[in-house]
C-alpha cells in the first residue's frame, strides 16, 4: 500500500453512499410519477362504499399502485376494526385491478 492509499483509506468513499441513496430515491420518484392521478379519488370513494357496511376510519384504507415490466397492479388494503374478528384484528383484502 502506498502512502497516499493510506491517507485515502482514512476517508470514506462517500460517492458510493451518494449513489446508493440516489438509486433508491429516484426509483421511488419514478413510481410516483407514473402513478395514476385518480388514486386519491378512488380511495375516497372506496371508503364511502366500505362505510356503508363497516365503520372504518380514513386511515383504514390504503391503495398502492405497483408497476413492473408486464403488469400494473392496484393493491387495496382494508383494515377492519378490532371487534370484527376474534382471533386477529387485522384482516387484509386484496383486490387486483
Amino acid at each position, binding site marked *: 500500500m*502506498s502512502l*497516499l492509499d493510506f491517507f*485515502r483509506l482514512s*476517508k470514506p468513499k462517500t*460517492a458510493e453512499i*451518494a*449513489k446508493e*441513496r*440516489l438509486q433508491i430515491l429516484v426509483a421511488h420518484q419514478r413510481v410516483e410519477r407514473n402513478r395514476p392521478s385518480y388514486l386519491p379519488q378512488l380511495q375516497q370513494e372506496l371508503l364511502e362504499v366500505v362505510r356503508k357496511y363497516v365503520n372504518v376510519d380514513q386511515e383504514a384504507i390504503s391503495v398502492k399502485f405497483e408497476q413492473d415490466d408486464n403488469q400494473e397492479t392496484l393493491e387495496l388494503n382494508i383494515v377492519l376494526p378490532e371487534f370484527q374478528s376474534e382471533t386477529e384484528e387485522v384482516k387484509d383484502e386484496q383486490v387486483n385491478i
Partner: protein
Amino acid sequence: MARIIVVTSGKGGVGKTTTSAAIAMGLAKKGHKTAVIDFDVGLRNLDLIMGCERRVVYDFINVINGEASLNQALIRDKNCDQLYILPASQTRDKDALTREGVGKVLDELSADFKYIVCDSPAGIEKGANLALYFADDAFVVTNPEVSSVRDSDRILGILASKSRRAEQNEEPIREYLLLTRYDPNRVKSGEMLGLEDVQDILSLHLLGIIPESKSVLSASNAGIPVILDEKSEAGQAYEDVIARYLGEERPHRFIESKQGFFRKLFGG
C-alpha cells in the same frame, strides 16, 4: 423553423446560464442564426454573462406585453453577428410570463432564427415550466451531486408530461445530459459521483462533461461566454458539446484525473 433548446436543471446554481451563453455562442459561431432568451424574470443574469448589460433597453416582458417590438428588444452580440440576446425583465416577476405570450414570441423568432436557446430559471414553477414548455430539445445541466441528480430526474418527469410535445402527443422532447463542474480528481478519490454513477441513474444521451474550471469565473467577470476562451478546458468542452449536438462524433474528454506530482511521488 427554429429548433428550440431549453437549458434546464431544477436545482439552482448548477451552470444553466453559463451553459446557455456558451452553447448559443457555439451555435452562432458555426454560422447558425441563434437567439438566446433569459427566462429568469426578476433575476436577469444572462445579459451579464454575455456582456451586454449596458445595452439593455427593452426586455422579454415588454415584447410579450406589446410595449416593444422584437427587433427593438433583441440585442446583437458584440462578438458574433449571428447571435442575439433577449434579456429578462429585472423589475417584473414570473407572473408576467404567460404561455400565450411566450408562444407568440417564440413563433415570431422561429421565422427568422435557426436555434432558440431558452435559459431556464431554477425550480419547477412557472418560469421553469414555460421555459421548457415549447422545447424540441432539452439540455439537462447536472452537477455530480445528490440534490442536482435528483432534481434532474424531477425535470425529466416534467419534460415527459407537462411540455407542449407531451400534451399534444407529439414526438417527445429530446433529452441530453450535460454533466458540469466535474472534478475528475475528486471522482477518482471517491468523494464525487462519477459519470458512470450519474448515468446509471439518469441514463441520458451524454452531450458532454464540463470540468470545474477557473476560466468560467474569469469569463463571467469579463462578460464573454467561456466557449470563446479556446485555451480553457471548459471552453473546449463546450465546443465539443456543440459539435456533438450538430452530429459530429467526438470522444469525451476531461474525464480522467490528472496525475499530480504528489500522486506520482507516492505511487497513488
